């Protein structure tokens, strides 16, 4: 039986591409980069962060430019939250901050300390799916699945807010989440099912 290595596919691809790219750069380019990097690349500012994500506390220093989305995906490897447009137009990056749905791509990580962040990874209770996750599976609330974490986070908030009195109201209050596959009917059905 082969030994199991604790290396993710994502880590392997990132590291191996970076190493091959580095090996292919000629020495002259490397030398030029070393000489010019101080004025080509502005020095970054770091901020100390202490954040609570899915009831776990994290402490580290991060670039002040880090958005909550990049903090989740790049620093904490919580890749369930998706980067769609990165400009607040698609809703794929929707998470909850203090129970309210927000766009993590337009939230600075530096503005989150002291608040409770919940991502798609924090919805299930162990192996027990959140009712909305179960409803999305049952009602075919997705096809490719890329917008799904954002849709589910938004759907959970939509039910909590009580904006489920009619199909029209659900559609209006889910309009911040785009689905290119067009699974909208299944999404509305999932929300109706959970809202009861």
């Amino acid at each position, binding site marked *: 039986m082969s030994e199991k290595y604790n290396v993710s596919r994502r880590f392997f691809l990132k590291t191996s591409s970076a190493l091959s790219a580095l090996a292919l750069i000629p020495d002259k380019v490397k030398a030029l980069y070393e000489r010019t990097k101080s004025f080509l690349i*502005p*020095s*970054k*500012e770091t*901020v100390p962060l202490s954040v609570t994500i899915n009831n776990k506390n994290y402490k580290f220093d991060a*670039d*002040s*430019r880090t*958005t909550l989305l990049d903090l989740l995906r790049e620093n904490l490897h919580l890749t369930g939250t998706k980067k769609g447009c*990165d*400009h*607040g137009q698609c*809703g794929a990056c*929707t998470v909850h901050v203090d129970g*309210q*749905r*927000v*766009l993590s791509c*337009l*939230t*600075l990580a*530096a*503005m989150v300390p002291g608040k409770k962040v919940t991502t798609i990874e924090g919805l299930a209770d162990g192996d027990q799916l959140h009712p909305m996750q179960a409803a999305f599976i049952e009602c075919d609330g997705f096809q490719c699945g890329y917008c799904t974490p954002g849709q589910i986070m*938004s759907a959970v*908030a*939509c039910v909590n*807010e009580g*904006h489920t009195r009619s199909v029209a109201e659900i*559609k*209006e*209050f889910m*309009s*911040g*989440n785009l689905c290119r596959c067009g699974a909208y009917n299944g999404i509305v059905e999932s929300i109706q099912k959970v809202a009861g």
Partner: protein
Amino acid sequence: MRPFTFSQPGTISQALSAKKDAVQFIAGGTNLLDLMKKHIAEPETLIDVNKSLSQNIVTDQQGISIGAMVKNSTVAADPQVVKNFPLVAKAILAGASPQIRNMASTSGNLLQRTRCPYFYDISLPCNKRKQGSGCSALQGDNRMSAIVGWNDQCVAVHPSDFCISLAALDATVEVTGQDQQQVSIPFKDFHKLPENTPGRDNNLPANALITSVKIPANGFAKHHAYVKVRDRDSYAFALVSVAAALQLDGQVIREARLASGGVAHKPWRWYEAEQFLKGKKATTANFKQAAAIAAGTAKPLPHNKFKVLMLQGAIEVALQNCLTA
């Protein structure tokens, strides 16, 4: 994004004393972060004012005061706003998405930049981004652009819905300046037309902060409507929007308010049409006439002639809806 230093002052005086030209205030960030990602805004320092300014809504006999940091969704759901200023709640709910309304602040909504595509494309000229470089929309795709109040320098429109209701209800913008002096700016004078300074969207004094928005008590809660026409049913900026409010004495209109979004560089009031309606009966014929008066003043661009008829229709519908609201 260009690197920046970051601070979170706890008081307004700390926030104001840290403000210089290369420093920018941030509240909800829904517009500013986007502009920073696109290198349109490049502040050296960001000051988060969420803890420096009011997050409260206060009501008294004079009206309502909405703190600068109150989120758009909180304003729209506030029982006093819903009861006494329902036009404001309706306008807010017609804008953006639930996620963005949960993030966006009251003062940030007033200060958001235009959504003109040329303003966001840094490879093309734009007088709003770079004074003197030219207006790309004037000869380019100006389907979404202004139909009133524009000039050769800029044809961009103000994107807010919230502000259209505030303009209609004669709100005031409460401002604290660098010298701690407090000023009250009438809403109609807050935003400006392009004039020779299209880079400036409003008359907020340099390095000052909006502390609250006040709406005077009024008799418009019963008869009001917000009509927004856009390319898709929800989560899109207005092609044309209309905030309408009437005070009726039986059949007779005692006072009328009409304001529009998507038509000008600032929230636009239709004063002549309002004047026409005053003292007249609330009839379809009078509503049609008022709409025609407003639309008659429009000067559309090559790609947005459709907006004139759309506006006329939207005003008529909004006024009719005032009677059934």
